[in-house]
């Protein structure tokens, strides 16, 4: 038996070189080590030193190599030669492309800048694209936040100066009870998984609130299979239980929130002193005093009698509102699909962990009132939520309710609770307000987007009509801080509020998965007027791949892939910070493009130079920046503050604020593509009120001066719109919106049924239909990836046992799914761990034939489907001739998850329905076999 095991080389050479950059297979923006062999990408792994992913990488990230070699990559600028939507293009040179674009944009800029609508999708350079749009002078700019999760962002920022999403994270090291609402994946993909892994290893508890039990909910110890759209009620019922039992953090409420602030009984606005400081009654003196004075002990239960009126604290109003029996568990059980016992148990457990398992961190800190605390009190309950609660038309108030829940438990910004990531926390008052001051040939009077504080800040023209094409910041959705990208095409097509000339879009697959009513959008994009001209006259689009949207553009600007360009993940927009550190990052060309493509931001710089736009042009008329890399290094927003916070100054030793460093990008590359600055010990909790954090943030350039503030349980901006609707003030809402505003603009969180529920016969359409993100796919991009599309090449509609049995479905069956708006016929599958009245599918798997360099018989276009065909951007007509958008009435957030449907068994069609004609592919089809190996 003398068998010789083969001699193995167990130490083969791994690569010639490792280049470290930032992943962009999704917006989590992990650090990656790109292993190169013979100048080619051989293997991608996570960067262990990186603050976001600390070495791990998700499926998409590891599949990057198949993205960079994807046959769907656009190869050169394209000019449309066939009709719109046909996919017939000719390749042109960049000179020609830039000339065409300049030819369209120059007259607009000179005459009527608002005729340009510039909207960017999954943009990670918003501070740059926004700067470009502002200097162009159009009021019509936003990114995709309006259809994504603006409810989450605004509810968080208005309530506590920051949100979930990517603005903050649980204190994974200390939390003992983690409650997750409606998250399938989120932007913080890897950190959430790592966090859950961490707390699970400690045996801490996870509660998942989600109609669907998959992904994170599969590992949740307790699953709450809630009825979609009812979280607000469920949460307020928990608030009810906790308040009833007095299980609330009175100290926290008194010190750090507006619970003790007096509400003017006449106006419903907060009482303030002459400097605008909120007023409280000091328990030690019994006197009315600004909240932030040294030694003040705000009195939660105070009443203030003045001129015959009694003014009460926010705490009074909270108690009055939430102790009401309408929020009792028994009262909400049916609507939420959660039993009263379970609600009570959860409330009890939250209280137990927050208060009985409280702990002290031995860390001294000083608050903004100058009081020094010996320790930090930990309340090890943390929460996280995302689109599950925000992508509903009651999402803003639901998100606010969740924040109120966290705040009464005293678990925000404390050890074991939820914490912000720089540049958050930041009170809403520290954000800019929106601007719409348009002047031909000049820059807009300020940034487009921001946080309104009342009716005066709305973006209305003199005649009260919307100033923006998407009707953001109007009475229809006053607090729409991210704009309404989902309404742009629909409004531009309807000429409501006005017509535009050129639609300029970037990185958004608007004729497909990012639009509601995809079929309708295709029609709007191709519709012609009585002269035979397109109703939306010109469309310029930048994509990197052969997506569905490409076919609808007149001019296509082909972008590079993420490994081929410079990018900047900046503290000025959506950085990669951690709760303990500020951080930013870059991308840089680790491989050179092998096609005639250009980074889109560089193209914008080149266009700005051709147009001579201010902000991009020196006094002598010469160009300030040659390309995006040049801008990243040399642009300064304010003196000393540029897109990147690290390695500033001549010696690369300045942080946050500092002079331009011409070698900054090289320093980033040497440092692994990112930069981290840790928050000093003692400054990393209680940040909104912690003097040493505030000072650190000023030093970093995050604030200009310390800005301590109170959490806004009671939201004054919301109240100011409600008050206007009640008839106060000069700016008045149109009559048809008055009652709605009165009802929904409640300064304390409320719950109301989804707007769609009012317009739909719920007996006919009783079922909720949802989508979830697959962890291994990013919207439409994943499909072109040879490895990822094997995981999710088509998507069934999952049905709960009740519906499965009721309709007698069996494996392999198909169903016809109908909403008030449309009908689809799709394959079904059974899932038992699913809310009884809910069906769902994976998002954005279905593809149009002829796209993404796939064959026409690809499963994506034959079995795959989109739910989007059932969702309309408008609510069902009410017979008043008005177009009511299917959005949250406060923020304009697209209400994707309000959808109601009915289901019937259907004969299996040849392909999923609706089926659209194939697009002529602007790129060649991929090979029939892959044996990818770059090193031999």
């Amino acid at each position, binding site marked *: 038996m003398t068998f010789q095991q083969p001699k193995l080389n167990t130490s083969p050479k791994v690569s010639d070189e490792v280049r470290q950059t930032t992943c962009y297979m999704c917006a989590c923006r992990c650090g990656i080590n790109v292993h190169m062999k013979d100048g080619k990408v051989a293997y991608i792994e996570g960067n262990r030193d990186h603050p976001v992913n600390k070495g791990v990488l998700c499926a998409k990230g590891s599949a990057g190599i198949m993205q960079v070699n994807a046959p769907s990559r656009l190869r050169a600028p394209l000019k449309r030669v066939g009709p719109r939507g046909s996919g017939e293009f000719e390749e042109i040179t960049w000179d020609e492309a830039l000339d065409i674009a300049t030819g369209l944009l120059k007259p607009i800029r000179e005459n009527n800048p608002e005729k340009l609508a510039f909207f960017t999708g999954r943009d990670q350079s918003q501070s740059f694209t926004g700067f470009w749009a502002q200097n162009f002078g159009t009021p019509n700019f936003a990114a995709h936040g309006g259809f994504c999760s603006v409810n989450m962002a605004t509810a968080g920022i208005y309530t506590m100066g920051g949100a979930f999403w990517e603005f903050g994270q649980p204190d994974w090291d200390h939390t003992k009870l983690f409650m997750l609402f409606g998250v399938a994946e989120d932007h913080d993909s890897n950190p959430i998984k790592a966090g859950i892994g961490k707390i699970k290893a400690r045996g801490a508890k996870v509660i998942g609130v989600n109609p669907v039990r998959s992904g994170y909910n599969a590992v949740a110890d307790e699953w709450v299979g809630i009825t979609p759209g009812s979280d607000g009620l469920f949460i307020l019922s928990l608030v009810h239980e906790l308040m009833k039992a007095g299980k609330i953090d009175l100290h926290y409420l008194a010190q750090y929130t507006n619970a003790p602030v007096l509400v003017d009984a006449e106006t419903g606005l907060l009482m303030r002193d002459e400097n605008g400081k909120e007023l409280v009654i000091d328990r030690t003196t019994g006197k009315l005093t600004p909240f932030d004075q040294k030694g003040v002990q705000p009195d939660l239960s105070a009443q203030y009698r003045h001129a015959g009126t009694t003014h009460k604290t926010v705490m009074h109003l909270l108690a009055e509102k939430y102790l009401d029996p309408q929020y009792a568990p028994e009262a909400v059980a049916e609507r939420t699909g959660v039993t009263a016992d379970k609600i009570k148990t959860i409330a009890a457990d939250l209280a137990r962990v927050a208060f009985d398992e409280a702990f002290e961190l031995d860390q001294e800190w000083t608050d903004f009132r100058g009081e020094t605390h010996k320790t930090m009190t930990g309340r090890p309950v943390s929460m996280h939520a995302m689109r599950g609660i925000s992508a509903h038309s009651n999402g803003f108030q639901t998100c606010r309710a969740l924040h109120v829940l966290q705040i009464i438990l005293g678990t925000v910004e404390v050890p074991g609770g939820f914490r912000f990531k720089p540049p958050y926390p930041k009170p809403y008052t520290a954000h800019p307000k929106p601007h719409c001051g348009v002047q031909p040939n000049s820059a807009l009077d300020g940034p487009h987007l921001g946080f309104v504080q009342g009716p005066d800040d709305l973006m209305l023209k003199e005649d009260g009509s919307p100033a923006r094409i998407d009707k953001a910041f109007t009475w229809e959705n006053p607090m729409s801080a991210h704009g309404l990208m989902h309404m742009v095409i629909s409004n531009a097509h309807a000429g409501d509020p006005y017509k535009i000339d050129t639609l300029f879009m970037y990185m958004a697959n608007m004729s497909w998965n990012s639009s509601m009513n995809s079929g309708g959008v295709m029609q709007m994009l191709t519709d012609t007027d009585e002269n035979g001209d397109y109703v939306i006259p010109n469309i310029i689009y930048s994509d990197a791949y052969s997506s569905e949207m490409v076919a609808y553009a007149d001019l296509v600007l082909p972008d590079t892939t993420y490994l081929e360009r410079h990018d900047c993940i900046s503290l000025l927009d959506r950085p990669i910070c951690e709760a303990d550190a500020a951080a930013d990052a870059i991308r840089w060309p680790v491989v050179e493009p092998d096609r005639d493509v250009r980074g889109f931001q560089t193209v914008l710089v080149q266009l700005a130079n051709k147009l001579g736009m201010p902000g991009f042009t020196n006094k002598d008329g010469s160009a300030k920046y040659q390309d995006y890399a040049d801008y990243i290094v040399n642009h300064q927003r304010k003196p000393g503050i540029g897109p990147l916070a690290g390695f500033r100054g001549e010696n690369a030793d300045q942080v946050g604020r500092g002079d331009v460093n011409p070698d900054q990008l090289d320093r980033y590359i040497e440092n692994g593509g990112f930069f981290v600055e840790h928050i000093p010990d003692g400054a990393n909790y209680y940040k909104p009120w912690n003097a040493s954090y505030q000072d650190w943030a000023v030093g970093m350039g995050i604030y200009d001066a310390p800005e301590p503030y109170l959490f806004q349980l009671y939201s004054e901006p919301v109240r100011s719109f409600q008050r206007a609707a009640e008839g106060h003030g000069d700016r008045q809402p149109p009559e048809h919106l008055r009652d709605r505003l009165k009802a929904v603009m409640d300064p304390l969180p409320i719950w109301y049924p989804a707007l769609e529920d009012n317009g739909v016969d719920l007996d006919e359409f009783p079922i909720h239909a949802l989508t979830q993100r697959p962890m291994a796919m990013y919207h439409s991009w994943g499909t072109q990836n040879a490895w990822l599309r*094997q995981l999710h090449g088509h998507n069934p509609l999952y049905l709960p046992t009740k519906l499965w049995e009721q309709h007698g479905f069996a494996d392999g069956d198909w169903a016809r799914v109908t909403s008030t708006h449309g009908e689809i016929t799709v394959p079904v599958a059974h899932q038992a761990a699913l809310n009884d009245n809910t069906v769902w599918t994976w998002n954005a798997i279905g593809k149009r034939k002829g796209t993404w360099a796939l064959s026409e018989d690809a499963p994506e276009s034959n079995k795959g489907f989109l739910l989007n065909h059932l969702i309309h951007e408008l609510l069902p007509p009410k017979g008043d001739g008005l177009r009511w958008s299917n959005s949250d009435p406060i923020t304009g957030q697209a209400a994707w998850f309000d959808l109601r449907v009915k289901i019937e068994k259907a004969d299996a069609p040849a392909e999923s329905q609706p089926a659209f004609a194939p697009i002529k592919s602007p790129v060649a089809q991929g090979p029939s076999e892959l044996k990818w190996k770059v090193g031999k």
Partner: protein
Amino acid sequence: MHPAPSVIIFTTLSGLGFGLLFWLGIDPTPPTGFTGFIFFAIAYALAVGGLLSSTFHLGHPERAWRAFSQWRTSWLSREGVCAVAALCILGVYAAALIFLGQNIAILGWIGAAFAVGTVFTTSMIYGQLATVPRWKTPLTPALYLTFSLAGGALLSGRTFTAIVLLLFAAAVQLAWWQRGDKALSESGTDLGTATGLGERGTVRSMAHPHSSPNYLMKEFVYVVGRKHALKLRVIAFCLTFVLPLILLLVPFNHVFAALAVLSHIAGVACSRWLFFAEAEHVVGLYYGMR
């Protein structure tokens, strides 16, 4: 299991071929000269043809010689060794008979032993697999051996032996089917043990790892409808046994004999198709399939 044509052809033909070789090897008065040539040519055509066919399903047929090395543990290796030994030894035996008219009986016996050995080792390739409960039974070698010997007898014109062996094989076939239908459920292996989650409740596959099928599903999951299978069993049984027996029992006639042989071959092929197609590999459990 995926009923790969190459494997069905292989087991069918080489089973018959080695069966015939067995009878030729132990024949005290083996055919010589041209008759001998015809018999051996048929036997070799079937055995070698089958073996060649089996190499079609190899990823690297050019390395097939390596398959002789692991006879100590591998039934597949043993099969190769036996087959080559049988073919070589009986080759010499046949050459002596055909060209020299010499019966080197000892070679015939040894060769015959290797021929049966080949069929046995072939059967053990399947019969050893705990992963396919339907196959994992001594009845599998019994099935292969009786089929092979009966077929060989039939081919070699041993009417009586053929009748007896066909009856015997028919009984084994019925027993094999009967047992096989319960094999998976009686094996104790189910999705519960496959996932280790069985004690918590009923385990069900909710989603496959990939949305499109893979090698494992193509190789191990083949679903024949029950009705379909029953029909095919009846056909296989009639063709393999009933029809040949009837044809053998009527007064001898060369046409009938030829028909009996053809019917038997078609029947065996059909039975072999079912042998694979009906076999459930436990891997299917992971996919919620069988």
